[in-house]
């Protein structure tokens, strides 16, 4: 038998639980009308909040609802994929990273956009921004904003940014020796997509490639040199060993605290570093990644764009949303208010914007230098191999040539077994 005191506890517990249960049911019962649901990573959901309100005001029959996803690209992808695998996805539009498109298209989750947007849809896109939206002859995605890897540098510590790997090392060493900064250069070295972006820029900068005609060339002298350089940065203490577990936020945290002279990151960091309370406000500039003389200063293209889900029940309304959010006017607002890089040529050339945001011209140049990660339905595996193997070099587990040899073998095997569909 339960003693009365214990009984009272149980009753209290029960009352509390029933109360919360009914609250929850009340929340579920609220109705929504004519919904178009969009999944976006958190920062973009914040940035588009005003635009979404404007859309809902001007379109009384469509209720646009934005779901704030996680920030990390892979976490958003996991969320989107689990909703798609479960069937009856609650979303109509997805804000997708450029590297997902072929996989999602091959899985049959996306609706081709050619029919909805017409053949001239891409005409207004700036050079670099048109890449990675079509796959297998069809348009699957329309870019909202461009993203590309940038090299941030401290204007208070040096006159001009380094343009070659050797210069970057020399400047870092000098500043570290003078005690100006504890570290020289921070970047994304964790085993995740961000590392693949870092490596792609250096591959090009050292004169190498990821794939040539669908064959991996990752044990080329250039590729080995690029990885060796990253390994050396850690070994010489220019980059902290913690880089092997660093993503974008960790790198930004260290750089913003004034603990490093250089950082590789995306344009969002520019806005963040220039916030009123930022200790580095006005002390930072950006350029493209360093490269060996004669090789291109590459910027990995990481644009975000909308895709229409094949399972959507509100396709026409969703296309309406897509047009509105990617319009020149919307891109202009996103740039003025949040500093996001547009994808439309007409926005890049807007005199009002150029006056308000002088960095825009530099961003357009960086975008023109954009390089694309391989377009393949098995890209996730290819990239997984790349970042795992390069990470073994960064942590010092393996020498750079050995890591790249292993990477080459594994990539070859992967592409062979996937029937050359790379």
């Amino acid at each position: 038998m339960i003693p009365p005191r214990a009984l009272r506890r149980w009753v209290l517990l029960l009352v509390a639980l029933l109360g919360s249960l009914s609250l929850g049911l009340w929340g579920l019962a609220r109705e929504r009308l004519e919904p178009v649901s969009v999944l976006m990573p958190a920062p973009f959901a914040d940035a588009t909040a005003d635009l979404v309100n404007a859309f809902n005001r001007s379109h009384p029959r469509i209720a646009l609802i934005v779901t704030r996803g996680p920030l990390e690209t892979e976490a958003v992808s996991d969320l989107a994929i689990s909703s798609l695998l479960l069937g009856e996805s609650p979303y109509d539009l997805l804000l997708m990273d450029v590297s997902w498109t072929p996989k999602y298209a091959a899985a049959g989750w996306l609706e081709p956009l050619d029919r909805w947007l017409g053949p001239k849809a891409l005409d207004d896109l700036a050079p670099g921004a048109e890449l990675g939206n079509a796959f297998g002859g069809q348009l699957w995605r329309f870019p909202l904003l461009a993203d590309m890897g940038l090299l941030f540098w401290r204007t208070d510590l040096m006159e001009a940014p380094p343009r070659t790997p050797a210069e970057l090392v020399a400047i870092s060493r000098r500043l570290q020796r003078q005690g100006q900064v504890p570290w020289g250069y921070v970047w994304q070295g964790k085993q995740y997509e961000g590392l693949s972006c870092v490596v792609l820029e250096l591959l090009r900068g050292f004169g190498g490639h990821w794939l040539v005609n669908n064959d991996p060339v990752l044990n080329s002298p250039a590729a080995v040199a690029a990885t060796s350089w990253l390994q050396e940065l850690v070994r010489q203490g220019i980059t902290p060993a913690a880089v092997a577990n660093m993503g974008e936020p960790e790198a930004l945290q260290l750089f913003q605290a004034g603990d490093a002279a250089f950082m590789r990151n995306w344009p969002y960091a520019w806005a963040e570093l220039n916030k009123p309370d930022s200790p580095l406000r006005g002390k930072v500039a950006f350029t493209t990644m360093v490269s060996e003389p004669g090789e291109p200063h590459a910027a990995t293209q990481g644009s975000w764009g909308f895709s229409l889900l094949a399972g959507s029940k509100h396709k026409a309304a969703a296309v309406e949303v897509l047009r509105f959010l990617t319009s020149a006017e919307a891109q202009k607002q996103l740039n003025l208010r949040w500093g996001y890089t547009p994808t439309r040529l007409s926005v890049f050339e807007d005199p009002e914007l150029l006056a308000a945001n002088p960095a825009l011209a530099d961003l357009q140049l960086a975008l023109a230098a954009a390089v694309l990660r391989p377009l393949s339905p098995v890209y996730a595996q290819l990239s997984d191999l790349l970042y795992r193997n390069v990470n073994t070099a960064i942590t010092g587990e393996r020498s750079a040539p050995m890591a790249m040899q292993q990477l080459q073998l594994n990539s070859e095997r992967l592409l062979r077994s996937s029937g050359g569909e790379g």
Partner: protein
Amino acid sequence: MRWRLWLLMAPALALLLAVFAVPLLHYLWLSTQAQSVLTGLLPEPIGAQQWLRLWNDSRFWQDTWQTLRFSAASVSLEMLLGLAIALLLDQPLRGRGVLRTISLLPWALPTTVMALGWRWIFNDPYGPINRLVAGLGLPAIPFLSNPAITWMAAVGADTWKTTPFVALLLLAGLQAIPADLYEAAALEGATPWQSLRRITLPLLTPYLLIALLFRLAQALGVFDLIQVLTGGGPAGSTESLALYAYLNAMRFLDFGYSATLLLGSFAILLVLCGAAALLWRGNSRLQGALR
């Protein structure tokens, strides 16, 4: 009468079959199919190829080794610490009840919650341990960025969380040992160490084995902790079998291979726990013979 008993059991047994047996059978079928992004997510029969791929997949073997290493280290640490804590809590101390409750708290918290907490504790350079280390003028400890250290950090976090469970089981075992056995031993002049070895440990064996079996099975399926704490890195050095299977399904969209990996992990689990169980039976037979 008898059919009514079966009727009473039927709903529970049906749910158990649906949750345990159906998935395993489904995996058996799925492991003979190619179902991936390359087949448009539709199944295509390919015989034993997935199993061949598993056999030749160095990453599968690496993850097997890493999962075994993690399990062996954390389970043995947990058994040792758990035994120590159980012995401590078995003493007639003041505030024993409170202490027992507090020491059980880590076990009750969600793994993902505390994994996130550990990520912050292990942060390099801003976490508390590394700030302490920096205060002493030493270089930061790369808890989450060095393959040789990160797996131990994961073992540490796992040990922190599951030791209380082991301790509690063992405490129950300790309390079931009749006190007069110890008194008799004390009369014969046995040292505390001798009575621990001669009385406590033999009588505790069944409890030790239950705890071992249960913890071993759970540790071999480690997933939550690794996914949140390290994501399998650095350099893939903490990736567990379950995480590899998860990546194959949810990120690479390769369901056939994911099912094969899950069955592979299950086979390893079966072999290890089977061995432990046999050990147990051998042990109890030995004890029976001695009696």
